[in-house]
């Protein structure tokens, strides 16, 4: 078997302050980018849909910053993980190109919006069937184990609704049986599209399931960036040290519709005013200022830089060509000799 390619590297953020500041910047970048894509969607420049992670950025970035792609870690984001994707290492331009249907994008405009990834980098390109990507992340860990690369871990994202699928159950049980170093982040944002949690599951807290699967569980306020960063760091360390899968439940509220086509009128004022209804970006900003780790002037400067960055990426993607059906191979097989072609008979 091949030797492990990378023997391990230190976390790039040496202290809590630098990690928090980096996390906040990714959250801000995701927020600004998603607002831009929403505008482009409303202007008819993006087709299909725009799916935002508004309210989930702290939880999303928390997992991704606990992973290290240079160490061989694998990341399985879902639809509300723009912040995590950026923190893991996905280029903003890849996101812009996929949303805007550029032929230069990682999916070559065959897939759109959040259905993108980078397999060599370790980002699983999600399909729409919830829960099905968890076992794919597990498989990469199994593959790494075969190849002698024992240091890498996986991080995978799902929502409260996705935990009701058979695929979620099979994958978490499988990961537990195989004792895989897998961190499963469940963003309980209170609604699966329009369905509230009381129509989704009957336990008090999804973390109660951890004991049933024989895995370690963590349940946190997903709007608190400090808590998210610390909990995922701890969970990732436990996974890396051989304690098996870690189930992390983040309680939060989706501060937008399922997609930009959805006005989320089913989310009540009670939810919005509730303990998880606060905006994690605002919470993090206040913490940065109150702790002295940043100040308003610097955050305004970051915002201005981010707006330029977002503008640059979306403008670039908009200038690029879309796919040409006459240049498309129309082949789904890697093995060209076995392709049947396209019979019109």
């Amino acid at each position: 078997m091949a030797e492990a390619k990378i023997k391990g590297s230190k976390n790039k953020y040496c202290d809590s302050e630098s990690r928090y500041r980096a996390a906040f910047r990714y959250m801000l970048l995701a927020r600004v980018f998603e607002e831009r894509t929403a505008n482009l969607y409303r202007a008819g420049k993006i087709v299909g849909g725009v799916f935002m992670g508004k309210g989930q950025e702290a939880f999303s970035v928390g997992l991704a910053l606990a992973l290290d792609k240079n160490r061989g870690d694998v990341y399985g984001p879902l639809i509300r993980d723009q912040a995590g994707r950026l923190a893991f290492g996905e280029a903003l331009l890849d996101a812009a190109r996929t949303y805007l249907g550029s032929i230069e994008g990682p999916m070559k405009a065959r897939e759109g919006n959040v259905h993108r990834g980078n397999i060599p980098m370790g980002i699983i390109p999600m399909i729409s069937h919830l829960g099905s990507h968890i076992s794919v992340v597990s498989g990469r860990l199994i593959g790494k184990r075969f190849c002698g690369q024992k240091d890498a871990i996986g991080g995978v994202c799902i929502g409260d609704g996705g935990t009701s699928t058979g695929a979620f159950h099979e994958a978490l049980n499988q990961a537990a049986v195989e004792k895989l170093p897998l961190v499963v982040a469940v963003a309980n944002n209170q609604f699966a599209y329009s369905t509230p949690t009381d129509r989704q599951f009957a336990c008090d807290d999804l973390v109660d399931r951890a004991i049933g699967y024989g895995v370690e569980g963590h349940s946190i306020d997903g709007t608190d960036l400090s808590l998210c960063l610390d909990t995922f760091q701890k969970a990732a360390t436990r996974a890396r040290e051989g304690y098996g899968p870690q189930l992390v439940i983040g309680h939060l509220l989706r501060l937008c519709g399922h997609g930009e086509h959805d006005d989320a009128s089913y989310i009540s004022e009670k939810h919005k005013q509730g303990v998880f209804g606060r905006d994690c970006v605002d919470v993090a900003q206040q913490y940065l200022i109150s702790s002295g780790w940043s100040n308003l002037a610097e955050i305004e400067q970051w915002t201005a830089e981010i707006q330029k960055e977002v503008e640059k990426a979306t403008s670039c993607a908009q200038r690029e060509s879309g796919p040409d059906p006459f240049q498309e191979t129309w082949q789904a097989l890697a093995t060209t000799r076995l392709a049947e072609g396209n019979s019109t008979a």
Partner: protein
Amino acid sequence: MSITYLEAIQAAQDRALAENEFVYIYGQDVGSFGGAFKATKNLAAKYPGRVIDAPISEDAMVGSAIGATAEGMRPILEMQFADFSTIAINQICNQAATQFWRTGIPCPITVRLPSGGTEGGGPFHSQSMEAIYAQYPGLIVLTPATVEDAYSMLLEAVTIDDPVVFCEHKYLYYHLKADQLPDKNLPVGKARIARTGKHATVVTYSAMVHEALRAADTLEEEGWEIEIVDLRSIKPIDTDTVLASVARTGRLLCVSEAFPWGGVNAEVISRVTSEGFHLLDAPPKRLNAKDTPIPFHPNLWKAHRPASQSIASSLRDLLRY
């Protein structure tokens, strides 16, 4: 020495494990127990850590295999029965089959499906799933009818850079024997003329090849020479070999053990009528299992699936036209 179809499958997996360190086998009871049918007999002991028992989780089995390919692995999955692969159909058809098209990264998994009916199998241990998988872009679907093909096509499947659905027929596991395993064989994608003839062509695959051969023996006694094309591979289908045979005989009967609506028979007839209408002297016919779930009792099961007698009867109708 003789070797059965099942032993050929075990031998192919043995060789694949021996020759490629990235091959591993994953499935329910495949480890020290050797599999429900013993298709992995002795392999766990011979290749420690590479023949792994899975929980009863077909979805997660396939999902994890897909992930493992990204690390260079070439997994072989055993579905205990083809019927259970419906649980994994999302991972096979939506995840594995689309991956190369979506990302440009190949997904070389081999999914073994113990397929088809046996006496007493009943509705959930007897199904023929090949047409369902062939419908999806991005999959290769193989249906070996001989010991030699079971061996060589499974070995080839493991080398293919796309997901392969390998439909091995349970009825042939013990019934079919060969003197030895082949050194070389027809490649995947090529059909085989299982019997030459001049009055009618039967296009078929898997266990039905042997029913068709028996029907041809019966018809020979009546003065008819029946040509039999064994498709070997459902996707891709070797239309050229089929058309060439129909050009020789002018008559076509398609036989499949699968349910009648759509499917391989309909596909073959569509292709022949579209591309070789002028070759036909009679309307093409098809013979499938009945359009009901597969019955448990042998009396019903034997009448549910095509068999040499019903194939011979269909051929007589075709030849009378």
